[in-house]
C-alpha cells in the first residue's frame, strides 16, 4: 500500500471527494482536542484504511509518559480502528513541559530500559502493537554506547514492537551524521519492519562547517531522488511494506501528494519486480 499523511487542510476534501489512495495516516494530536475534525476523520475511516501516527507520546522521556494522553489516544484508536499505530524514537516532554519536537536520545542502556518500559506501557494501554520510527538526526551525544540501528533492533526484540523505517530520515541522518544510509538499512532486522515513510527535506548551510550542507527534516518539499533510490533498496530488503508519503509544511494541493504516493507505488512495483526477476 502507498498512501499519504492526511493533514487537517485536506481532511474535508478527502471526505468529500474520496480520491483514489490506498490508505492514509493521521497525527492523533490534531484530532484529540478537535471534535469537528474527528467527526470528519470517522467518515474517512469508513472509506480508507487509516494509520495513527503519534507525535506526542514521549517514549524516550526519563519521566513517566502522560497516561492521560495515552488514554485519550486509546479512545480515538478504538473509534477509528486503525491498521497501524506508531510513534517515534525520541522524547518531547520534561518537567511537565511538552517541547513540540522530536528530541534526540543518547543510545545508552538506561535510555533503552526507559524506552522499553514505555513502549510496553503504550502497547498494554492500547491493546495493540506499536511501531517506532527512526528519527531525523542532526546531533548526537558522546555518552551513546550503541548505534541507532542496534538500539532500535534491541527495542523491537525486547518489546515485540515493530519498526517504522522512515527512509528519508535514514538518508538525512546518514548525510548529517556521516554514515552510509544503505548500510544502516542493512543492519535493521527485515522481519521487524512494519511500515515505511517518505518525506521531503530542506538543505541548509551548515553554519559550523563552512561549505557543508545540512539536511533539515521539514516535510515541505517533494521527495528527493536519492531517497527514491534508497526506498527501492529498502523495498528489496524488507519486501512490500506499506508506505506513507508525508508532507506537513507549505502544504501543496492534495493532488500533489497523491502523485507522490502514486510514484511510491510505481517505485515499489518496479523494485519488487526486478528483485523477484533477479531471484528467479
Amino acid at each position: 500500500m502507498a498512501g499519504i499523511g492526511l493533514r487537517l487542510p485536506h481532511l474535508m476534501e478527502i471526505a468529500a471527494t474520496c480520491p483514489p489512495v490506498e490508505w492514509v495516516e493521521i497525527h492523533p494530536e490534531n484530532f484529540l482536542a478537535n471534535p469537528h475534525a474527528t467527526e470528519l476523520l470517522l467518515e474517512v475511516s469508513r472509506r480508507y484504511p487509516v494509520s495513527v501516527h503519534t507525535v506526542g507520546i514521549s517514549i524516550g522521556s526519563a519521566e513517566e509518559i502522560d497516561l492521560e494522553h495515552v488514554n485519550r489516544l486509546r479512545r480515538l484508536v478504538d473509534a477509528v480502528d486503525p491498521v497501524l499505530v506508531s510513534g517515534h524514537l525520541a522524547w518531547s516532554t520534561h518537567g511537565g513541559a511538552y517541547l513540540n519536537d522530536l528530541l534526540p536520545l543518547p543510545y545508552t542502556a538506561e535510555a533503552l530500559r526507559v524506552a522499553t518500559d514505555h513502549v510496553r506501557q503504550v502497547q498494554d494501554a492500547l491493546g495493540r502493537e506499536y511501531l517506532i520510527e527512526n528519527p531525523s538526526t542532526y546531533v548526537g551525544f558522546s555518552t551513546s554506547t550503541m548505534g541507532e540501528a542496534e538500539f532500535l533492533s534491541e527495542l523491537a526484540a525486547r518489546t515485540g514492537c515493530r519498526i517504522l523505517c522512515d527512509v528519508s530520515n535514514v538518508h538525512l541522518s546518514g548525510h548529517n551524521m556521516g554514515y552510509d544510509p544503505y548500510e544502516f538499512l542493512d543492519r535493521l532486522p527485515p522481519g521487524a519492519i512494519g511500515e515505511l515513510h517518505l518525506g521531503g527535506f530542506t538543505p541548509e548551510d551548515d553554519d559550523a562547517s563552512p561549505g557543508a550542507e545540512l539536511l533539515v527534516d521539514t516535510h515541505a518539499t517533494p521527495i528527493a531522488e536519492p531517497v527514491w533510490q534508497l526506498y527501492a533498496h529498502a523495498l528489496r530488503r524488507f519486501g512490500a511494506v506499506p508506505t506513507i508519503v508525508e508532507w506537513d509544511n507549505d502544504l501543496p494541493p492534495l493532488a500533489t501528494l497523491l502523485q507522490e504516493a502514486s510514484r511510491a507505488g510505481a517505485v515499489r512495483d518496479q523494485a519488487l519486480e526486478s528483485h523477484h526477476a533477479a531471484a528467479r
Partner: protein
Amino acid sequence: MLPLAELQHRVRQAVVAADDRAIAPLLVGGGDGRTRLGIHRRHYHTSLATAVIERFPATGWLAGSALVSDAAQAFVVAHPPSRPCLAEYGEEFPAFLAARVDAAGLPYLRAFADLEWQIGRLSLAVTAPALTLADLQSIEPSRLADLSLALQPDVAYVHAPWNLDELMRIYLSDRAPDRFVLRDEDVRLELRGARGGLQITRLERAVFVFREGVQRGQALADAAMAACEADSAFDAGGALSSLIADGLLTAARAPGKDGEA
C-alpha cells in the same frame, strides 16, 4: 555516566531558554554540536510562536502583528505547552499579552483576545443531540430545583466591559469602517460556534447570569436565584423553556438516585 533525566534537563534548557552551556560538552555532530542542537531550538520557537499567532489573528489585526508576534515569542519561553495537542495551547496568552509593557495603552486587549480564544475553541466543537421538554417529564417536579443541566459543547458565555462584539464583527466581515468608537459598556455575550459556524448574541443581564450559571454547573434553583438578583422580573420558567427551545440543553441530572434525562 550522566543520568538520562539530567541530560534531558540540559537539552530542555538549551531548547527553551537558549542556555546550552551545560549540554555542549556532550554534543557530537558536525563542526559544532551546539549549532546542530540549534535546529531543535529554532523548531521549538518557530512552531509554537506560529501556533499562537495563528490562534489570535483578530488580536494581531487589532493590536498590530509586531506586538502579538513579539509577545508570542516571549510566551513560548515563559509558558511551554503542557500537553501535545496544540489546539489546547494558548489559553493564557491573552493575560500574558495584556501584561506586556507595550500593550499598556490597550486596556481592552485582554478581553478581546479572550473573546477570540473562545471563538477559536468553539469552532472545533460539534453539537450533541438536544433534550426536549418531553425528556424532562420523567423528573419529579420536586427535584427540579436541584437539577444540574449540561449545555451544548459549542456554547460559551463572555462578559466584556466594552462593545467588543462589534469590533469582532468588523474583523470577521473583513470590512474596515472609517471610524469605530469603543464604548465603555457591559456586554454579555452568548457565543455558539459548532463546526466553524459562529453566532454572537447579546443577552440581557439576568438571562446571561442564568445561562452562565447553569453552564458552570449551578443547580437550577441557584442559577435562577442569581438571575433574580440581577433582575427581579426574571422569569425562571421562561428561561428554562428558552434553553430547550434554543437547543442548548443536552443533559439534566438530579442529585441522588435515578434522575438523569
